[in-house]
């Protein structure tokens, strides 16, 4: 079966700096892969390259069956990126934000509502302007924006940062649920204990290059098996 993500000796630039100097990566559908590495190793760049936001200038880069070197925009709608910077408009409320980004991706009101419920922002917080949210609440709101789009490939950059224990558990079960329902998850994290138990395997990134062979598949102890319904990834034609 064709991998969802395939990178071969890929080189990607940030400005003139080769943030990725030779990445080899294959991720199968439904896998949860953890990207591990020191700061500056290129984890964020790799995630953004998978979304087609950073151009790959050498090597191979195929995501969801589309060649990113030829057409970086091909997979945009089908991936969801949770990055360091949030895409929230400070003057809009949580609900306005999720609704805007959801509707931009052709989601309907039900998807938007479900996303708000899952992250726990469907109560009083939904009418709060984004500027007045705490860091953790902003994270959750950003996550809701991603959920409303129902992407096939999840790209999560340090998703646990700023979340309290309960929110982290919800996130972990969301990730596990998404993978079971056919989405593929690539996450970068410094929270190694939690992430390693969540992930199917680990890929190490140092100095812009993938280094060690994939670790053996691990079980998922301690992940709350709360089922989350109705958020299967869309298959966009």
């Amino acid at each position, binding site marked *: 079966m064709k991998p969802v993500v395939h990178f071969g*000796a890929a080189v990607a*630039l940030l400005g*003139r*700096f*080769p943030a990725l100097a*030779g990445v080899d990566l294959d991720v199968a559908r439904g896998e949860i892969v953890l990207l591990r590495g020191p700061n500056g190793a290129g984890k964020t760049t790799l995630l953004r390259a998978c979304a087609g936001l950073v*151009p790959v200038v050498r090597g191979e880069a195929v995501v969801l069956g589309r060649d990113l070197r030829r057409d970086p925009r091909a997979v945009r709608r089908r991936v969801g990126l949770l990055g360091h910077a949030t895409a929230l408009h400070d003057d809009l409320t949580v609900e306005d934000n999720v609704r805007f980004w959801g509707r931009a991706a052709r989601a309907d009101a039900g998807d938007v509502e479900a996303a708000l419920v899952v992250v726990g922002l469907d109560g009083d917080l939904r009418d709060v302007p984004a500027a007045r949210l705490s860091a953790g609440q902003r994270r959750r709101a950003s996550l809701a924006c991603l959920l409303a789009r129902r992407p096939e490939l999840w790209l999560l950059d340090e998703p646990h940062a700023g979340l309290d224990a309960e929110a982290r558990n919800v996130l972990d079960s969301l990730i596990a649920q998404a993978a079971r329902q056919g989405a593929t998850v690539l996450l970068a994290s410094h929270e190694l204990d939690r992430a390693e138990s969540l992930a199917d395997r680990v890929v190490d990134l140092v*100095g812009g*290059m993938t280094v060690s062979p994939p670790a053996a598949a691990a079980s998922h102890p301690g992940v709350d098996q709360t089922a989350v319904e109705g958020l299967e990834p869309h298959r966009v034609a």
Partner: protein
Amino acid sequence: MTANPPDVTPDIPAHTGSRASRILGVAALAAIVLATLYGLVWSPADVEMGDSVRLMYVHVPTAVFCYVGCFITTLASGMWLWKRTPGWDVLAGAGAELGLVFVLLALATGSLWGRPTWGTYWTWDARLTSTALLAVLLVGYLALRRLDLDPTVRSARVPVLGLLLVPNVVIVSRSVEWWRSLHQRATVTTLDPQIDGDLLVALMTGFLAVGLAFAWLLLHRFRVGWLEYQAQRIDLDEAVAARRAEAARRTGASAAAPAATSPEPAEAVGS
């Protein structure tokens, strides 16, 4: 990397001259001498304008070649967006820079011509006004080029602005001319005088001289820009190699980087 120090790499020439450019340069010098003789000595003064018409022999060609420079910039910007070969970007910059030099010359000579003719250095004549606006448009374009931008950002924004240059110039000059024509009294002493006979010959030599000088300058400016681009490409290969070496040091393993030393030809890296 090789044992040679980078700045003595055989590929990089020591200067931008060549046989073709030397011939062109000599021809330009000859034409300038000829035009000077014709303009200042051999042609008679104009019946109405007197000796100040001699400034026209420089003013009109510089204005025309400024438009040529703008046209080159817009065309090259379009080609850059279409083909994505970096030479077009270099050409666009060269065209705009020369355009600015020549438009300032045109404004200066036009202003100097205005002093004896109208009594002032400046008047809101249609041509002078729209030429001044053209200068500002070029300054803006060059200001954007001068910023230290991420190559991806740069390769999108600079050519779009360059593409808009000629349409802007056309619309601005048409509007200004239409506007001023409502108020202008019919006058013989405009910046587009009727010139014929010996005076026309002088004007033609002026065109020849300015044109050859423009071509020579463009050639050299383009080559300098091209060398700058080449220097950046070499930097990329070095940077990739350095990053890999650092990665190898960090992991302690020998850098078994596959295909690291075979740079692919002419990657358009967006600068």
